[in-house]
């Protein structure tokens, strides 16, 4: 379907132009949406493709955020240097959780991921070193020299915006490659029929663990950017409510697709922003929408858009890219 290539390209172009056309408020919101989109995409690898429902993904998000904040606060490490470290700590945490979690199936997996995210939540929440329930504030974001061509100053909102945009685009592209690679095929196989994969000769546990770690790394990067943007990190980032929010974004937008999670991040942010301005009980509406959505709707908003738009030209049995 050609339009499925055109729309994302168009969106990306619009995003590149956004800082020059929109207000600072909207640009700020766009940064938030991009970061959440990256977070949702990272979880979608697990939930949408491998069908491993993790209720503890926020832990890796928060760990990424706290890594950059702690390194800056305690060791004076410039935030930019902390990027690979944020991703690395998140992946390490994901590895530790994953080793145990991939030994479980079905309901147990959901519950264990929840349990372990709670470990990280409480470790951070109860410790003075990490600032307790108040969290840690980032003093400055820093700047860097881009190949001697120009200086990117992340304390300038516009520069930060492009930094986030480029990273999100890179992550999305990497995810696209991953899903279409042999590894991605195994991941999809795990989601569709793990026992078949085992019988054919693949140690699904090992592949599940690697998937889990990659997803954790993605979340860590999103957490890094979040801390950079909000210039603080606090324990709520690791709460299971946060994990729930990511899942909601995924499913509303459409899991198992690349556009879905991004769309979901957009929808939830808009919902929170505009519905929240209207009533402080907007979560009630979100809850009702969620219940009705699960009961009535199959798939998400993006699959619905694709279905509606291709209703005429659909041929039987053809796969969609």
């Amino acid at each position, binding site marked *: 379907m050609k339009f499925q290539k055109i729309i994302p390209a168009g969106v990306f172009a619009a995003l590149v132009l956004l800082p020059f056309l929109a207000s600072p408020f909207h640009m700020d919101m766009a940064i938030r949406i991009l970061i959440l989109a990256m977070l949702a995409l990272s979880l979608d690898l697990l939930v949408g493709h491998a*069908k491993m429902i993790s209720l503890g993904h926020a832990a890796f998000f928060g760990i990424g955020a706290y890594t950059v904040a702690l390194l800056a606060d305690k060791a004076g490490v410039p935030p930019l240097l902390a990027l690979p470290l944020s991703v690395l700590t998140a992946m390490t945490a994901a590895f530790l959780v994953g080793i*145990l979690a991939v030994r479980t199936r*079905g*309901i147990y997996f*959901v519950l264990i991921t929840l349990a372990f995210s*709670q470990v990280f939540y409480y*470790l951070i929440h*109860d410790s003075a070193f990490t600032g307790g329930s108040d969290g840690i504030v980032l003093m400055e974001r820093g700047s860097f020299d881009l190949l001697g061509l120009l200086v990117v100053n992340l304390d300038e909102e516009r520069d930060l915006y492009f930094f986030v945009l480029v990273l999100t685009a890179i992550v999305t592209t990497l995810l696209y490659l991953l899903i279409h690679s042999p590894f991605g095929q195994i991941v999809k196989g795990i989601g569709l029929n793990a026992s078949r994969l085992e019988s054919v000769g693949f140690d699904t546990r090992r592949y599940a663990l690697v998937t889990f770690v990659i997803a954790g790394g993605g979340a860590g990067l999103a957490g890094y950017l979040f801390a950079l943007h909000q210039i603080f990190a606090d324990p709520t980032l690791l709460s299971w409510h946060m994990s729930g929010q990511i899942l909601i974004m995924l499913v509303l937008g459409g899991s198992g697709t690349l556009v879905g999670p991004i769309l979901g991040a957009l929808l939830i942010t808009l919902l929170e922003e505009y519905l929240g301005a209207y009533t402080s009980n907007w979560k*009630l509406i979100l809850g009702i929408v*969620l219940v009705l959505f699960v009961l009535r709707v199959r798939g998400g908003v993006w699959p619905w858009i694709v279905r509606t738009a291709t209703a005429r030209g659909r041929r039987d049995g053809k796969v969609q890219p």
Partner: protein
Amino acid sequence: MDELLVSAFVQVLNGFQLGFLYFMFAIGLSLILGVMGVVNLAHGSFYMLGAYLFYAGLQAGIPPILAVLAALASIVALSAGLEKTIFRSLRNRSHLDQVLLTYGLILIANELITMIWGPTIRSVDVPEVLSGSISIGFGREYPLYRVLVSVIGLTVGVGVWLLLQFTRIGIQVRAGVFDREMTSALGVDVNRVSLLVFGFGIALAAFAGIVAAPILSLYPGMGETILIPAIMVVILGGLGSLKGAFVAGIVVGMVETLGRVTIPELSNVTIYLVVAAILYLRPEGLFGARISK
């Protein structure tokens, strides 16, 4: 030295009390999770609802016993309605759908409670007749009500055991009536069993909330505060195991209570690490799991 012993004894009693509370709450969760295979994150919301309805009853001047019965009756009716409309179809849906839908219910429940009673913390006084204390030696007194919680927990446990052992539904549940292969056989009305098991599990959660109300404070979101440790109890004890819920409930309650006084900074983390350690050795929990899905 004696002082220390008595203080320790008090903490052990507290541990049991919390453990029995977890046990009561976890039975329903274990049944719904382990036997029906439904991830019900909203289990804590019924706990919260039970506590608040009891509170509302007392505020309206209804005598405690009647307030308890009224709260339970309303929640049983509510759960029956929910089972027919929502939870019945949830049995056949993916875990993702279950997680999301019940998470949505949590949001709805918390907001409704906030809208009706506000976000501030409420408390319920221990009913007059139960507000005494008993002497536990060395001049120390221990609240009667807290002992009662343990007694109630034990009674509930025995009651559930009897139900599972000797009623037809109980036998069907233990025989795996919700397992996919068995559903088609034997002419069992699975929907009716589902309704009863679900309603019963929810009622237990609400009852736990009522019992806990005079000891713990009431606030929107209190359901999630107990849900997470209860999930640990269920994992530890094995899904669907009554014995497991009992032993694990006491263990979790004890670890949490004793941990809070000995290593306060690590107390919250400890139980999760204990769970991790045990699960590493026995992935099916202490008493083995009956995984329906």
